[in-house]
């Protein structure tokens, strides 16, 4: 009887008031792809940190190949043969691919060996990677490949992947799954962290479900339905969104021929972006992160006022050069992707944060009417079910979901005529996410024009009426969401819509079609 590669028994970890992992047990066998499923805040990341040695459990034991071990640091974990591909890449922009990989390997290895090893592994798994390139020119998908190759070069016996597909097109996801299956076939055990049920069903042999720090069940995902897995994950079926057909009104926002050079070497240039949003509809923009979403949003919100005045028109009025405050006066409100640091100042109270975008509590000479401000804040907190100690609560003391509800509520409360939202439910628990999506649909029904930019395809499919895709700084034409399929959107995410950025040609086309990479100017890998 071969002992399991990894066994966790009764792992418990507490952080101040919160019990992140409560009596968690887990078994992974060699050659098995094991999913750890749970929504945000369920304790998945903490558990992985315990396995990887970044964090020490308060109680419980870890068994490796049947023997108890203690993993006190990532160094110990690597010595055992555990490798990890992080959700937020641990890469150094100004260093080359080879140098980055080298830093993740023991010092006894030489840099030249690393370069050779990268070429070998890349060929073996069909990944496209050049060791001498500096990381800052790589696309997001390529950066993940660096992380994966770094893990593979360590000849791991257990590979942990933390939410690896959030930055990939559907085709690239397939490619990743091929790599993982190949790896598992060599006897490596794989732990796959995700909250995406379809992917887990397609890839994994078994899964362990976490909720609020506890294990709620283990299962064979291919035998389960979305409903049963969902019930294990959140205790109930996924909330269904009530949707009526859109009653489309007049044109609210028109973007026409928006072309913007990139601000710095790390950015993306926008090219001839055009879209329309009418009152009473929700338009979505899908796309893998790093294809120009940030730049487009900044041009729409007023944070980047470089565009031609006519390139962005609000109710017929050219606002391309207008600042953020002016656009708000005209009825355009924006919910940014980053909550702390952009949507709200972490060290200020909720009341003070209200003043970032709302000025009803201001009086003559800029004096702040504190009572009016407090009342206004309390009103928003009440209406949008924001859980916090009061209007004086400091922004960073709120949970992600509650702060997002507050920020969305702040903008919705302004009764905007046009709302632009980026990643509305990122990092938010399922309950709050459902509430926010329902609010957006209600806003649409009330006649507002809404534009949603998101990396979560299922969210876009759930709430939008029409869908665009952004790739390499260009925007696809829109199609009604009802006519869209995941495959088609996936292709478009690689720039493969009619008239889109040039299709890659050459022997490598299929491999590169799975991901938006800058054209390698004629050089074959």
């Amino acid at each position, binding site marked *: 009887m071969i002992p399991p590669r990894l066994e966790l028994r009764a792992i418990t970890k507490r952080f101040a008031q919160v019990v992140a992992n409560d009596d968690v047990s887990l078994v992974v066998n060699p050659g098995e792809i094991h999913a750890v499923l749970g929504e945000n805040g369920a304790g998945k990341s903490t558990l992985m940190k315990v396995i990887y040695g970044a964090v020490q459990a308060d109680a419980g034991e870890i068994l490796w190949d049947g023997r108890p071990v203690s993993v006190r640091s*990532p160094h110990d974990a690597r010595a055992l043969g555990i490798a990890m591909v992080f959700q937020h890449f641990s890469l*150094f922009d100004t260093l080359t691919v080879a*140098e980055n990989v*080298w*830093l993740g390997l023991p010092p006894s290895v030489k840099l030249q060996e690393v370069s050779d090893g990268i070429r070998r592994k890349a060929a073996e798994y069909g990944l496209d990677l050049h060791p001498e390139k500096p990381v800052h020119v790589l696309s997001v998908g390529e950066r993940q490949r660096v992380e994966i190759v770094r893990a593979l070069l360590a000849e791991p016996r257990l590979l942990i992947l933390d939410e690896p597909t959030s930055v990939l097109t559907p085709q690239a996801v397939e490619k990743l799954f091929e790599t993982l299956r190949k790896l598992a076939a060599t006897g490596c055990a794989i732990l796959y962290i995700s909250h995406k049920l379809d992917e887990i069903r397609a890839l994994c042999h078994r899964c362990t479900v976490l909720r609020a720090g506890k294990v709620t069940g283990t299962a064979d995902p291919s035998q389960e339905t979305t409903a049963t897995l969902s019930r294990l994950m959140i205790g109930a079926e996924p909330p269904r969104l009530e949707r009526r057909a859109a009653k489309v009104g007049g044109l609210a926002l028109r973007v026409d021929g928006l072309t913007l050079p990139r601000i710095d070497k790390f950015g993306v240039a926008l090219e001839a972006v055009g879209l329309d949003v009418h009152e009473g509809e929700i338009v979505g923009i899908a796309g893998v992160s790093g294809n120009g979403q940030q730049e487009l949003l900044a041009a729409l919100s007023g944070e980047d006022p470089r565009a031609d005045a006519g390139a962005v028109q609000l109710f017929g009025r050219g606002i391309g050069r207008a600042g953020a405050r002016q656009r708000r006066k005209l009825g355009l409100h924006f919910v940014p992707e980053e909550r702390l640091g952009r949507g709200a100042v972490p060290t200020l109270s909720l009341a003070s944060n209200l003043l970032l975008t709302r000025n009803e509590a201001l009086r003559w000479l800029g004096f702040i009417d504190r009572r009016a401000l407090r009342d206004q804040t309390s009103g928003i907190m009440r209406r949008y079910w924001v859980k916090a100690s009061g209007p004086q609560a400091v922004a960073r003391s709120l949970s992600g979901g509650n702060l997002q509800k507050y920020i969305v509520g702040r903008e919705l409360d302004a009764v905007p005529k046009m709302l632009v939202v980026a990643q509305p439910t990122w990092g938010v628990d399922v309950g709050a996410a459902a509430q926010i999506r329902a609010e957006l649909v209600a806003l649409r029904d009330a006649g507002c024009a809404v534009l949603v930019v998101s990396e979560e395809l299922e969210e876009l499919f759930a709430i939008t009426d029409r869908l665009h895709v952004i790739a390499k700084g260009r925007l696809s034409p829109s199609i009604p969401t009802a006519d869209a399929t995941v495959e088609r959107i996936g292709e478009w995410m690689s720039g493969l819509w009619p008239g889109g950025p040039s299709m890659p040609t050459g022997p490598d086309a299929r491999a590169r079609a799975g991901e938006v990479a800058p054209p390698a100017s004629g050089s074959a890998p």
Partner: protein
Amino acid sequence: MNGLELLVAAMLSAGTPLAIAGLGLLVNERAGVLNLGAEGTMLVAAVTGFATAYHTGSVSLALAAGAAAGALLGLVLGWLVIWLNTNQYATGLAVSLFGSGFSAFVGLGYVGKQLVETPAPVVPFLSDIPVVGRALFQQHPVVYLAIAVAGGMTWFFYRTRAGLVLRSVGESPVSAHALGYPVRRIRLAAVVAGAALCGLSGAYLSVVYTPLWVEGMAGGRGWIALALTVFATWRPLRILAGAYLFGGVTMLQLHLQAQGVQIPAQFMSMLPYVSTVVVLVLISRNPLWIRLNMPASLGKAFYPGA
């Protein structure tokens, strides 16, 4: 020595304290820590070095004492900034203010005192080369040390794994930590090493360059060295170049005065400070260029538990 020889010799000599301090700051900043305490460190080291030289008569011991004093201050700054995560700007300023007050206090007993003269060592043969021989090869060993350190640092940063690790810590401490490197210890080591170099520079000032002690004798060199690291885009050899250029500017004012140019002495003395501002303006104009070259985590706190 003739005019050119004098100028070259003076440039090397005057630029050396800036070079050493600049190299020390470079090590700090490559690891992501901004040390605004450089001026205070140099002052404390200067008075320590002078006192040591005065009591023991040994220049080497004095220089070592200065470096040790610098390292000690670096330890204090490092502990505050790295382990307690205090604001890097404020803490550096506090060290400078403390250093300036402390050195003034301790130095009271040494004002007006003189050190035993030691002749500058001469490199045989090479110093007989015409024109530049005496200028280049009759310098104090510390001058050559500065050049050696710059060369050594270049090799360290770009050819060794340890140097790569240090650079990665400065680039992204979070990623380095995730990979298992002891970020805080590496940063502390860099801060202490860098501060020791600043200390060496300060001791050089009071023991070799102008062998006396006067309150505030660093004259802003610690601050100028900070500007130097930006000017040199954090590369050791460029720090040397910049330091010697600045040394040249300092010499220019003496040269002009010697020539009898009718500009009041105070305006001449402004030259180094004004040139620093000019240099800062010139290099800061392109924010993109700075972003590509500057250690990305410079000045920011690192929280390992986050």
